[in-house]
């Protein structure tokens, strides 16, 4: 279904580029809004996943094999706009590295496969799932309707893409037919191109796409990987095609995360140069009996945690050094802004000056006692 270079005339491929550029811009804008910069590697991974998944040859009943285009699958997993970008990039790399599809035809291929495939696949899937949910207050449909929705969506997605490919190719004799004898570009008219492309897609390729998409999603569901449900609003939005462009994308990562500079760090150490590395600890929130956090300190003896409420937090650390087993408890006072207010220092650290003063006094007394005893001993010797 990848159109190579030379099959499309300049008006067709130029038109496809002109259509795709705003679509890419819109997709990039939508993705920037939903996918954080930190998730760019994830998007690249999604691209490669779709690329590699297309390479898996699957055995079909009867002994033949086939592979999927995966557009609807990727759209269901990543959301339509992320899928447009991921599959467009996969097509770009395929065209440059493998020669699958032409460079001038990238616009047309991306329109047929990435855009139409992704939007049709995701739209039909979302529509059926939302219709199955029958309202936001009802539970999302069970696995079977979702899989059926995915099957229909992937079947329609690949066939829509194939149909548009056939139309674009079949229009070439009409647009550029035989000024210098023979067709200048793709030589077959619509009445040949459409059946030649659509018959295999409607019968075999579409069914294969649907079967493989269902098979893979079955395992995704078994693995409890999330496929976000579609709200009733989604149905309304999807009723008209224009509204599909503004529908919120389905980002179906099982776990989201970002990195924030919020943590509070406690350093635990035996001496300034001897950190309590990899020591067990338990952290209790204010008034908690169950630990808020458990684990081990890092290599440098740090415990990092993010307080979720103000009050006195208690940290207990157990560590073993060359001098035996140690345990320490510290109270950390968290203020209303969830910042550090104060913390209880270890006994020696709190009364450092007092301890030092007493130590010096004891030391001076010791020196005096030693001097006095030696002086007394000397006098005694003289008495004998």
């Amino acid at each position: 279904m990848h159109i190579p270079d030379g099959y499309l005339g300049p008006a067709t491929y130029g038109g496809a580029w002109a259509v795709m550029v705003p679509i890419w811009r819109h997709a990039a804008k939508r993705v920037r809004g939903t996918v954080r910069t930190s998730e760019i590697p994830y998007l690249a991974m999604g691209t490669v996943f779709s690329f590699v998944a297309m390479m898996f040859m699957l055995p079909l009943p009867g002994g033949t094999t086939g592979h999927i285009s995966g557009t609807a699958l990727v759209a269901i997993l990543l959301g339509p706009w992320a899928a447009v970008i991921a599959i467009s990039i996969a097509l770009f790399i395929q065209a440059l590295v493998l020669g699958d599809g032409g460079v001038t035809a990238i616009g047309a291929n991306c329109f047929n496969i990435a855009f139409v495939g992704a939007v049709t696949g995701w739209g039909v899937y979302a529509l059926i799932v939302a219709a199955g949910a029958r309202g936001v207050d009802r539970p999302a449909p069970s696995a079977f309707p979702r899989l059926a929705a995915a099957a229909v969506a992937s079947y329609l997605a690949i066939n829509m893409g194939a149909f548009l490919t056939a139309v674009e190719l079949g229009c070439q004799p009409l647009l550029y037919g035989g000024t210098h004898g023979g067709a200048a570009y793709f030589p077959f008219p619509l009445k040949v191109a459409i059946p030649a492309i659509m018959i295999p897609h409607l019968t075999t390729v579409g069914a294969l796409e649907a079967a493989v998409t269902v098979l893979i999603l079955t395992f995704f569901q078994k693995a409890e990987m999330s496929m976000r449900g579609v709200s009733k609003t989604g149905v309304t939005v999807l009723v008209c095609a224009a509204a599909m462009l503004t529908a919120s994308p389905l980002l179906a990562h099982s776990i989201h995360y970002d990195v924030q500079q919020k943590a509070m760090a406690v350093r635990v150490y035996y001496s300034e140069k001897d950190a309590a590395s990899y020591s067990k600890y338990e952290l209790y929130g204010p008034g908690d009996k169950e630990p808020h956090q458990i684990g081990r300190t890092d290599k440098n003896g740090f415990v990092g945690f993010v307080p979720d409420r103000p009050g006195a937090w208690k940290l207990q650390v157990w560590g073993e050094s060359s001098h035996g087993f140690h345990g320490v408890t510290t109270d950390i006072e968290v203020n209303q802004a969830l910042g550090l207010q104060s913390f209880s220092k270890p006994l020696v650290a709190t009364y450092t000056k007092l301890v030092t003063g007493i130590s010096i006094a004891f030391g001076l007394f010791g020196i005096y006692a030693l001097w006095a005893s030696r002086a007394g001993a000397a006098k005694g010797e003289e008495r004998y």
Partner: protein
Amino acid sequence: MTALPEFLLDRHPLHPPGPSKHVVSVTFLDKGIHRLSRIVQSGYAHWDLAQRDSVLHRLDARVKVLFVALFLVIVSLKRTIAPEAGIAAFVLALFLASRLDVLTIYKRVLAVGLVFGVLVPFPAMFNFLSDGEPLFPVVHLARPYELWGYHLPQSIVVTREGLHGIAMLFLRVTNSVALTIWLMDTTPFTDIAKALRMFRVPDTFVMVITLSYKYLFVFTRTVEEIHLAKKSRLLGKVRGREARSWAAERMTFLYRKTQMRYEEIFKVMVARGFTGDVKLYGLRRAAASDWWAAGAALGAGVLFLRW
């Protein structure tokens, strides 16, 4: 060329799955693995060739990307054989000037050209799809036929227009493929991706393209390992249903692995100071030779356009 890793050179014969008694051999996976290994092979080959030293290798990536884009458009605009043949000769000269292995490269170029330029449009050569001046007859039927709206004439002949169309398509496909391969074999992929910024492609896109290209090789290796792990545990053939389930399950696993790998890579990026801002190093400043080359490319383009 740099020696390829051993696993890429392994060329065991591939057997299609056996259709009998609902049992298939997992060699169907071998096909997928070898398709993937072809990607890695091309990647290594492009990487290796792009590192060579020639005047054309040293040119700025932007100049080469612009040149290829311009010539791809010119190739698509030409409607007669002579200028297409002239462009073919010009591209061949570029390969020779780049000191590349022309024979090996043109085997690939011609293979693609034969499939998409000759085999696919082959029926267009005859008069049952479009009229034209008969050159020589092929089949003479008892009478003309009308089949589901298609007309089959009594005498099926090869037409001049049909041959011209196929010759044009063959030249156009081979020229386009040759230009793309020349770009890939003289320019590192990362430079090509960076050169796209010239067309106002956002940095985010460029970064995704670059990362995708790199991850492709990582994942190809992962898929190969998954396959070998399964293969090493098999004593005989598996049932078709089990094989399908297994392949689908592996894809699911691959997706999870994708997520895990992403998390690892992101941690590595953060550890190296990534703060969320995409900042790509640009290409070097264009030298005088790059400007001369750009001018020459433009001149050649105008010549071919006016031909």
